[in-house]
């Protein structure tokens, strides 16, 4: 780990100013569970760290409003996961946090930092000698001919097949969340669906935030569909593991069981949080049956591209969709 300067400003405005003043390569620090980890691995080496994790007001949670749910960028994962309104009305949001990482990590980590966590690709994290375009642009991609059981099958490029690892963003994108950010040029709002970018030729670029933009809050429009939702996460052990496949699914059903609204997003299978809009449309107006769910899953993976040992993710992903929609449907009728 390289030496770095550390500042702890008292307000968000000061934080943005401090980061701008620190020059290129400076980073905000929240819970540190991604940033410190990567610094210890030598993958990130910021010259300056601006700590925002104690800024009053950045950690507010407000789920009482009629129009939207509001989560401060500095709110702790553990606190949001236990919010009673989420647990009752948006189980997918609560579960996406509760099934992430471990209780210790969730107590440290923030819902803002969570969105910007970086891939678990071992070649990325392992440093040299592994070729990795994300870590060292132009060096190649060791994963393509290597151990890719955890890698993505959707949204990949020749340059990078790394999976977006987070859970929370998957549930958020299904509910049309937006992110308010504050930067040197002022405040703006970014739809979550536009926050992350596929690797293309530049896997080192993962999101659309400008340098120095701070996530102030995440807002989710309220919807009755939230009640019939789940975050279904399939992994190599029952807890404390990243998703092999996951699905955030939500449905609203009318009196005779026809789907009137469907939300579907997938994790563990794509380079970015993956909203499955076409699959959603295929469900609306139909009864929610295993067959319809399977077709929806197949639509998601129609364009999937597999590598050496991640081909199972297609069938597992489809089944994850089927099972998630079943759970969502059961909750929608309760």
């Amino acid at each position, binding site marked *: 780990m390289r030496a770095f300067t550390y500042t702890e400003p008292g307000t968000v405005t000061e934080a943005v100013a401090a980061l701008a003043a620190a020059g290129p390569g400076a980073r905000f620090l929240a819970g540190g569970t991604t940033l410190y980890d990567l610094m210890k691995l030598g993958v990130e080496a910021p010259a300056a760290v601006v700590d925002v994790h104690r800024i009053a007001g950045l950690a507010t949670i407000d789920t009482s409003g009629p129009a939207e749910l509001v989560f401060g960028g500095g709110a702790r994962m553990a606190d949001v996961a236990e919010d009673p309104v989420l647990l009752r009305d948006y189980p997918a949001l609560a579960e996406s946090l509760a099934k992430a990482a471990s209780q210790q990590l969730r107590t440290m980590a923030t819902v803002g930092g969570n969105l910007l966590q970086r891939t678990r690709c071992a070649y990325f994290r392992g440093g040299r000698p592994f070729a990795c375009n994300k870590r060292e642009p132009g060096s190649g991609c060791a994963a393509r001919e290597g*151990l890719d059981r955890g890698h993505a099958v959707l949204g990949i490029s020749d340059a990078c097949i790394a999976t977006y690892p987070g859970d929370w963003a998957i549930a958020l994108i299904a509910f049309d969340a937006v992110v308010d950010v504050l930067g040197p040029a002022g405040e703006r709002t970014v739809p979550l669906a536009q926050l992350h970018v596929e690797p293309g030729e530049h896997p080192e670029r993962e999101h659309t935030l400008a340098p120095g933009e701070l996530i102030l809050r995440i807002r989710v429009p309220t919807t009755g569909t939230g009640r019939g939702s789940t975050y279904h996460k399939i992994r190599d052990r029952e807890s404390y593991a990243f998703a092999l496949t996951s699905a955030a699914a939500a449905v609203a059903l009318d009196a005779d069981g026809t789907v009137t609204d469907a939300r579907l997003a997938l994790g563990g299978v794509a380079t970015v949080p993956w909203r499955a809009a076409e699959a959603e449309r295929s469900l609306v107006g139909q009864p929610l049956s295993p067959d319809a769910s399977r077709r929806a899953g197949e639509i998601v993976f129609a364009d999937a591209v597999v590598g050496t040992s991640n081909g199972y993710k297609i069938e597992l992903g489809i089944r994850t969709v089927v099972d998630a929609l079943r759970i969502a449907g059961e909750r929608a009728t309760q």
Partner: protein
Amino acid sequence: MTAIPPTLRTERVDARDKVTGAVRYGTDRVPPGLLHAALAVATIAKGRVTSTDTAAAEAVPGVRLVLTRAGEGELASAGFLLGGGYGFQSLQPLMDDRIAYRGQPIAIVVADTPVAATEAAALVTATYETEQVSLDLDAEGVEVVEQAATLPPMFADLVAGDAEGTLADCDVRVEGTYDLPVQHQNPMELIGCVAEWEGDDLVVHEGSQNSGAIRHGLAAQLGIDAERIQVISPYVGGGFGQKNSLQPGTALAAIAARRTGRPVKLVSTRMQVFHNASFRPASRHRVVIGADRDGTMRAAVHEVDQQTSRHDLYPGSYTEITARLYGIPNFRGHQRLVRTDVQTPGYMRAPYEHPAAFAFESTVDDLAHQLGLDPVAMRLANDSTADPITGQPFSSRHVTECLRRGAERFGWERRTHEPGSMRAADGTRIGWGVALGAYKGAAVPAVARITASSDGGLRVEVGGHEMGQGIRTAVARTVALDLGVPAADISVVVGDTRSVPQHLTAGSWGTAGALPAVGAALGELRKALGLAADGPADVAAAVAATGQANVEVEATYTAPGQPPEIVLDRLRRGLPAAGGPVYPGFTAFSFVAHFVEVRIEPVIGRIRVPRVVSVADCGRVASPVTAASQLRGGVVWGIGAALREASEVDPRYGGFLNADLAEYTIPVNADIGDIDVDFIDVPDPLLNDIGVKGLGEVSMVGVAGAIGNAIFHATGKRFRHLPIRLDDLLG
């Protein structure tokens, strides 16, 4: 289990200290003036270091020393533990320019703080000449070695009767080839040490299962008298075989401490523990079993290829148990070693027995299925009283009772035979599987010393290490029960070369060696104090009556048939001295039967293990609390090995890719269901006076087999590799 009078019930004697954090592990030590070391490691898998650049590292503030090569005569190899030496491998880094595996240390950096040392170590760079690597059993360029032709007779192939000839005229033959992955022990406590010189004397604090080997190995490495070295391993934060020998970093820390004139602490990172310490090697097993139509097994062949390093031959003993699980009169074992470009592999809990039992018990299950026989009934019908290899009796063998009692506790009679025939209302597939395990009844020489004080205190020093298995508790309980004194009055000293000689504590022989020695010392104490030969005693009064403050006695224990002078001499020189399982007149094994339920959910197919019933025959149960914990822990390991754990190797790069606790998926609490354990608890009449056989290792043996068999019962699919993961069940 035998009822224990409430007054003598012993919880773990150190439970409170552990829970409150009062226990001090090896590297918790912080002597004044302490410096911190870190290792820089090779980024190639094989070749030579052509140059190193340490300038950037030396420029880091607080750096005191960057050492890339030991000086002339400063450092020697300690030799390989199984080749007459003391080290986990013979290769000692920093002695020449050879790189034998990725992650091999190329420099040690010493600084005022761990942060500076770590930063500086990352700044050490090297240039290399690389060579072609061979990393797995099938890789081009591996070298295959016939074990029997190369190693001493104790590693010969086990043979009885005529396996091939008999197979030819058996009614049925079943055969399978099984692949088991590399695994890492991953104890919570990282490998590390604190080295301090007091003049010409060296003191090392290190969590180790073998303080004796560290002492004598360092003496050989540093060229000093072993008497000048003391090693203190007060508690081991998990060893599981990985801490059974001298680690290559310890001598480097000692040299760094000598050069800087300050105590030096070196703690490996988790990544380094994956690369610079032993691990469970990959192995491949071919098993053939021939039987009569009624299920009588008449012949078996078990052939094993096991990975080793280029520089050492880590021997295999896989067939030692498979030859004895049943009374199969015709058996042929065969073991080959495959040299690959890795650090030397070694012992990881049930090192041979877990893979061997998975392969063998899966094949036995295939046989039962093919013959339409109940797997428990068929096993019962094949039990044996004599050791098929030597023809001698077992010292004790309660396999039938383990199976019967386990089946009853589990409710086995409700099992329906056909695979896929048991389902829950929601479509969950249910499978019930059984498998046996065995582990040699080993015995190790040990010395025990008891000092009784007139104030009632009893200090017991004995060979052995506390690795969480509860040796302190077992010793304290033995003394408390014998003399009728409270466990609180007894202090137990283990893992300390300043007391009695310290043996390699592994292979489940720790307690089996310590307790008989303590038992003998108790006899000496009674004699010295003129007490009755047994029954409660007023030790304090008896000591006071001698007019002295303390009375000290010492006794030794050696295994049956072991020449005492020879093995005690080996013990005193820090060399492995264990005996067994074959003793004059008898053969000793511990046994276990595991019964497992798996549930495979509909749609996704995640495999869960809601309940396990395990019944062990480990002789007398020396400490009920820690024994139950050992057995449950072994089952947890088996669940991990069956369904979760594998160290991933990219054949282009070498080393291990998932080298941290997030990516190397050991089971978490949520993976573990109900584990119901029971013990036969009949003392073994021959192995030692106390009647104990080992438990720690046998606990794990067969669990993976039982899980694989349960998965077969649930699905009709036989998986011949581990771990069995949900991608295997798709399709």
